[in-house]
């Protein structure tokens, strides 16, 4: 019968139309911005810089090694290395970024900077409402605007943060042990040297 196929199709449409009143699965949209879907943990938008402690400038994990700047595919990261050094979280003297800018109008959220960073210093944010009226400065973020405390990272990516924190804590323990061993070794060396000196030191009045 001509038209049978069309009627069959219309029956499907009718089923869907009626179903949308009863089945939540058939309603896939939410009324943004009043309603929002739950945040997704793996989501990534733009990079942020993580700092430890309370002072953002002193606690920045970044040591300005510039790997992310080199690897960034659209080249949207600009880093200027500092002239002097400051101690990092492990107490080692490190360079720090005197300038760290990310142009988020160029950034394509690919997460490669995060993957290549050996210091867990750069991570992805999940904030997506970032529109601005300023076409130039508004989207060029400097290190002050990029800095976020570690607890913020723990809040947005709890699983990742757990792994990262465990790794950093293990590093800290290792480096502390190493530092302690180094201190002990220096002390032992000094003691040995002192002992040696006391044995071999020329007695006053003997030389020449």
């Amino acid at each position, binding site marked *: 019968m001509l038209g049978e196929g069309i009627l*069959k*199709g219309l029956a499907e449409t009718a089923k869907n139309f009626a179903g949308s009143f009863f089945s939540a699965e058939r309603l896939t949209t939410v009324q943004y911005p009043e309603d929002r879907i739950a945040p997704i943990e793996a989501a990534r938008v733009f990079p942020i810089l993580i700092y430890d402690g309370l002072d953002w400038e002193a606690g920045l994990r970044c040591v300005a090694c510039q790997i992310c700047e080199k*690897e960034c595919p659209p080249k949207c990261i600009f880093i200027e290395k500092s002239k002097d050094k400051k101690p990092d979280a492990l107490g080692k003297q490190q360079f720090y970024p005197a300038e760290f800018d990310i142009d988020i109008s160029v950034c394509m959220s690919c997460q490669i900077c995060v993957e290549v960073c050996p210091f867990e210093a750069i991570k992805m944010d999940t904030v997506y409402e970032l529109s601005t009226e300023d076409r130039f400065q508004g989207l060029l973020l400097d290190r002050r605007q990029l800095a976020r405390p570690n607890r913020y990272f723990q809040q947005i990516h709890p699983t990742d943060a757990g792994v990262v924190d465990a790794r950093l804590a293990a590093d800290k323990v290792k480096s502390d042990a190493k530092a302690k061993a180094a201190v002990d070794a220096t002390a032992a060396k000094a003691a040995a040297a002192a002992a040696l000196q006391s044995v071999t030191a020329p007695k006053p009045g003997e030389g020449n």
Partner: protein
Amino acid sequence: MTTPGLARRKSKLDDWNRPPVILPSGDGELLEVAMGPHHPSTHGVFRMDVALDGERVIRLKPVFGYLHRNHEKIAEGISYLGSMPYTDRLDYICPLTNNWAYALAVEKLTGQEVPERAEYLRVILGELTRIQNHASSIGFLIQEMGASGTPLMYAFREREKILDLFEALTGARMMCNYMRFGGCRVDATPAWLDATRKVVVGLPAFVDEFEQLLRSNEILMARTQGVGILPPQLAVNAGVTGPMLRASGVNYDIRKVDSYGIYNRFNFRVPLGDHWDVYDRFMIRMLEMRESIKILEQALKEIPGGPVMDPKAKIRGFRPKPGEAYGRIEAPKGELGFYLISDGGTNPYRYRVRPPSLINLTVLEDMCLGSDIADVVLIFGSVDIVLGEVDR
């Protein structure tokens, strides 16, 4: 079902290697129309310069390049890893298969092994990509026919579920950037696999519903059967691949021919068309979705534990030995290949993409000549292209 038009058109195609010469009727002048680049049916920015005699197409010249982004040359200037996110932007409907093809090419170049679990994850993601690509391409095709909304909306409702899975695993809905040389970037959690199983269980019902809605619709059959015939000889000569080639009756699926990855472990069939027209291309996509569901069910059942990344793999700063490699996969649109030449540096010396969309598009004129201008839109839609991949 054969139509008289089909037999007539098939008989015209004796000399299959040359486009049929369609002569104007002689009363009046030809009208030249530039369809596009802003025509809504061109899936982006694509232009067809058509010469019309009344409503009949006498000549058709495809013009593209409006979306050229210099992908290949950029890739020669950055590291191997740096090109991975750019491959997402080639065929932006199916980013994960693009990732896969590129990862495969680099793995061939460096001789890396991929862990078993990563292979399974790649198959799962690749087949999910195929389903959502075919569903949305059918939706677009029907929309261009005038059924504005309904089938496309049903297709996108299903695509939404698959994109949610992609986002939960890779962090992005379309620009996934997930696969790496020697594995995958992050491991799938058991919760993610359960969510995928749930989506896959619901998929056959969706395909049934979609087929019920469209398959026997008289308007659709009248518009598509016997339209845009692509004979198998021409398809093979032009290098056409993917669902278009199989709709022309040629049994060629790289998953079977090459069995890259672990495809030889799965039990699936390759649907073939025997009328070579737009309706066949539409039906082949429908059937391929069913086969993809079969593969997904097997893969989700068998997926083993273990690492997802080769522990020896370096993601940056590696230097492959001088040489060349060609990695190819059966992407939803056809054979997607990446050809790389290494000169021993950290960047590829030459980086070439073999895009299925562009090469499938080369037979557009042959399919369109002699048909009505309204059918050109349909024939073009049945090729299933994405301009990001055509122009690169």
